[in-house]
């Protein structure tokens, strides 16, 4: 990994003077590894396909960065998606996209590893590859090209990106990524070419190498079959599931960025997985089963991180922190130990029970932030459909408590366009906002400055959820519903935010796409799409054209209901949760039947069939 292209440092400096927020490109932060390139024999570019500020807030990156750099012989460096101004200047000046640590061009790494957090980042992946001098298409790569891999939740349906990624890694990455490095090392030592290397990689549990599988289609565009085209690969690559996360390494010395990241604080992952079973939620299915870290080790990590970073705030991370078995104990211990050091603990807002409240008031560390609730749907019926077990009574109880402790800022998150939704359900959203507003003004003693923020996102049916077969509302319907809510939510103290409808429709199409979707993504990128998740850069027209140019019908992917017997593009992956369970859940949804949290009794989601993983 020599700096073959000899990046011109002076040129980079002069470019940095011209771009917005140059500090995000300089590297050298506290905690960043500072090693010569020749100190390792395997180089790994950890690529985050969005801006630095988001990358540096991402827990997965913190975890893997530290693990990989602690692995003998491995050097892991970070590469982020540049902002448009930087992208243009790099291109104009023929400077390849480089890593933050050693300013190494992307194409000089052994492994180029992306994390996929969001489908609307896919054009950024193409941009980074091209800018980094790596062939965009997997099939164009040579024996000396890097191996391009991807992991993260948006990989669970790998097919839309299968033309660009050599190997996908599904599931918990802590051990898997080390195995990948070892595998590449032994391939290098043996002098393997690309195909042999990929074959070796495909033997790692959790890896899916698309080129070893062939897809045949029916005349109507649905999939006829997906079959391995060589013998030695698994029929259905299975997600990597670590039985316990307690023994997996967790960051002790995370990087402290120079420029403020979106989340500029310590993070403790208290628990992985969620058993609430919300039927729209992909993360809830992808990260099963629930695995907790012990209070003791979390305290250790907190101490280490505080020493290493000097951060003033600790936040707890999980899909549903209120469900963590020792939440009260943990919060009390954190506050007891860290308030002396003037470190505040930001709490999972859903659970402010009396004890914690007491502890908080004592330490007077309550930030006057507010209450955040995600009822997701406006009526009890629809909440039963999606299995979100929260009632209007619960909501009002929490709001009451919040007003009592002096919060006047209430944030409510809803999803719009859920299966079976009618205007009655939208009225339910309006009613909740109205009730809160009226209740507030009925109080004699109330905190100042009521602010109710109602935000709606648009339902995007996702692979590996009980709603994976569902249709999404078409664009027109979504826009009409948003208009309706805009008009109905003109209530004192209420502000309404909605999510860009076009973006959600595209997300739905791409998320459930097959291999053909790759042509659309490629076409959109070639026509200038990138940084699509940023309003100022998103252009729906470019994408519409890309679908048209490739003769691919967006509605086929977004707003078409699938039959149970249809082979879905992601069926090739064994995510651990069974198709049968998802079907059962979908049927219960149709009858508005809820399903209990499976910690109160196994619901047979499929994981019970995998030795020793759950129950």
């Amino acid at each position, binding site marked *: 990994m020599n700096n073959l292209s000899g990046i011109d440092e*002076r040129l980079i*400096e*002069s470019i*940095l*003077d011209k771009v917005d927020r*140059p*500090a995000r*490109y*300089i590297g*050298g*932060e*506290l905690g960043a590894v*500072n090693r010569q390139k020749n100190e390792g024999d395997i180089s790994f570019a950890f690529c985050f396909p969005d801006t630095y500020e988001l990358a540096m807030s991402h827990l997965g990156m913190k975890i893997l960065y530290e693990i990989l750099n602690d692995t003998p012989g491995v050097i892991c460096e970070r590469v982020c998606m540049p902002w448009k101004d930087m992208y243009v200047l790099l291109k104009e000046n023929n400077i390849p996209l480089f890593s933050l640590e050693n300013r190494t061009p992307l194409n000089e790494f052994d492994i180029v590893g992306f994390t996929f957090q969001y489908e609307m980042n896919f054009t950024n992946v193409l941009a980074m590859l091209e800018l980094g001098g790596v062939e965009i298409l997997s099939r164009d790569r040579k024996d000396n090209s890097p191996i391009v891999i991807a992991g993260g939740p948006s990989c669970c349906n790998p097919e839309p990106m299968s033309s660009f990624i050599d190997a996908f890694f599904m599931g918990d990455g802590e051990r898997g990524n080390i195995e990948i490095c070892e595998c590449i090392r032994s391939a290098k030592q043996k002098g393997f070419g690309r195909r042999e290397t990929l074959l070796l990689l495909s033997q790692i549990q959790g890896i899916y190498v698309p080129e070893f599988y062939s897809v045949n289609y029916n005349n109507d565009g649905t999939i006829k079959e997906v079959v391995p085209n060589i013998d030695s690969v698994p029929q259905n690559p299975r997600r990597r599931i670590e039985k316990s996360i307690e023994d997996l390494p967790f960051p002790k010395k995370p990087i*402290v960025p*120079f*420029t*403020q990241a979106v989340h500029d604080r310590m993070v403790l992952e208290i628990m992985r997985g969620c058993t609430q079973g919300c039927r729209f939620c992909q993360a809830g299915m992808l990260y099963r089963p629930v695995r907790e870290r012990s209070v003791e080790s979390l305290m250790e990590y907190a101490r280490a991180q505080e*020493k*290493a*970073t*000097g*951060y*003033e705030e600790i936040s707890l991370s999980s899909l549903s922190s209120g469900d963590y078995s020792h939440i009260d104990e943990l919060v009390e211990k954190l506050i007891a130990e860290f308030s002396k*050091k*003037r470190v505040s603990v930001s709490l999972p807002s859903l659970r402010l029970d009396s004890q914690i409240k007491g502890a908080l008031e004592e330490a007077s560390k309550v930030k006057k932030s507010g209450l955040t609730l995600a009822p997701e749907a406006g009526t009890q019926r629809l909440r039963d459909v999606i299995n979100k077990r929260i009632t209007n009574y619960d909501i009002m109880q929490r709001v009451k408590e919040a007003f009592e402790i002096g919060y006047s800022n209430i944030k409510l998150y809803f999803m719009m366009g859920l299966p079976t939704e009618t205007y009655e359900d939208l009225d339910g959203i309006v009613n909740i906002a109205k009730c809160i507003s009226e209740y507030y003004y009925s109080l004699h003693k109330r905190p100042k400055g009521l602010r109710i923020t109602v935000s709606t996102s648009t339902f995007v049916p996702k692979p590996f959820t009980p709603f994976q077969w569902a249709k999404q509302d078409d664009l027109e319907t979504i826009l009409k519903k948003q208009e309706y809510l805009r008009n109905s939510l003109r209530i004192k103290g209420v502000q309404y935010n909605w999510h860009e409808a076009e973006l959600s429709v595209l997300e739905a199409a791409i998320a459930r796409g097959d291999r053909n979707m790759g042509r659309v993504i490629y076409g959109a990128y070639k026509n200038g799409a990138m940084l699509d998740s940023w309003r100022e850069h998103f252009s729906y027209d470019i994408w519409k054209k890309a679908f048209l140019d490739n003769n691919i019908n967006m509605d086929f992917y977004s707003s078409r209901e699938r039959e149970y017997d249809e082979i879905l593009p992601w069926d090739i992956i064994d995510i651990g949760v069974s198709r049968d369970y998802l079907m059962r859940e979908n049927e219960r949804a149709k009858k508005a039947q809820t399903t209990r949290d499976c910690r109160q009794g196994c619901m047979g989601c499929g994981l019970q069939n995998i030795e020793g993983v759950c129950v």
Partner: protein
Amino acid sequence: MKMRAVYSVSKRLRHVGHLDLMRLMHRALRRSGIPVAYSSGYNPHILLSLAAPLNVGMAGDREVMDVQLSEVITEKEFVQELNNSLPEGVRILSASKRDDKHPAAMSQLFAAQIRYDFLSPADSILSNVDAFMQRESIMSKRKSKKGMVEYDMRPLIYALSVNDGALYALLSLSSKGTLKPASLIEELSSFAGVPIPQYIAVRTALYADKFIPLEEA
């Protein structure tokens, strides 16, 4: 007790903005375990003040800051411990004690010395330095709250010289008037009739009244 410290900001870190540098110092002090004093009030913060913000894009050789301490420690300890917690690119060069009543570095500021290192040929502006300085007034425009206003930058320039291809400027930096290093180069380039060359500005020293180095004031 207060500690007045001199520190440097490397060229690589010249892109870090003032608030980010403040946050960086703040966290380094926290990590170091140096007994710092906090402000009282709802959101307590370390009593730390940097003498003068460095504009984004500018490096600093001898920047100055004041830190209020809650316990007495030696200068040596202060320098050592803080350096141990700072990222590469920011170094504490020296420190000296002041009593609590000593005026803040910020209020003692008078002038700054700037060195411009050129990345593109700058001969045509360098050869114009003397002629530029011989003028009695140098009228220029700058943005203010009321829109663009005219002002005379000549009295804000104490000295301008060339050495080894670099330009050195001694510029006013005080409550009475401040000249931005970038404005000087713009004006000088337009005087020479050439486009603005590429350069990196380094603030090499800060001065108090009578050009006493700020760290000695």
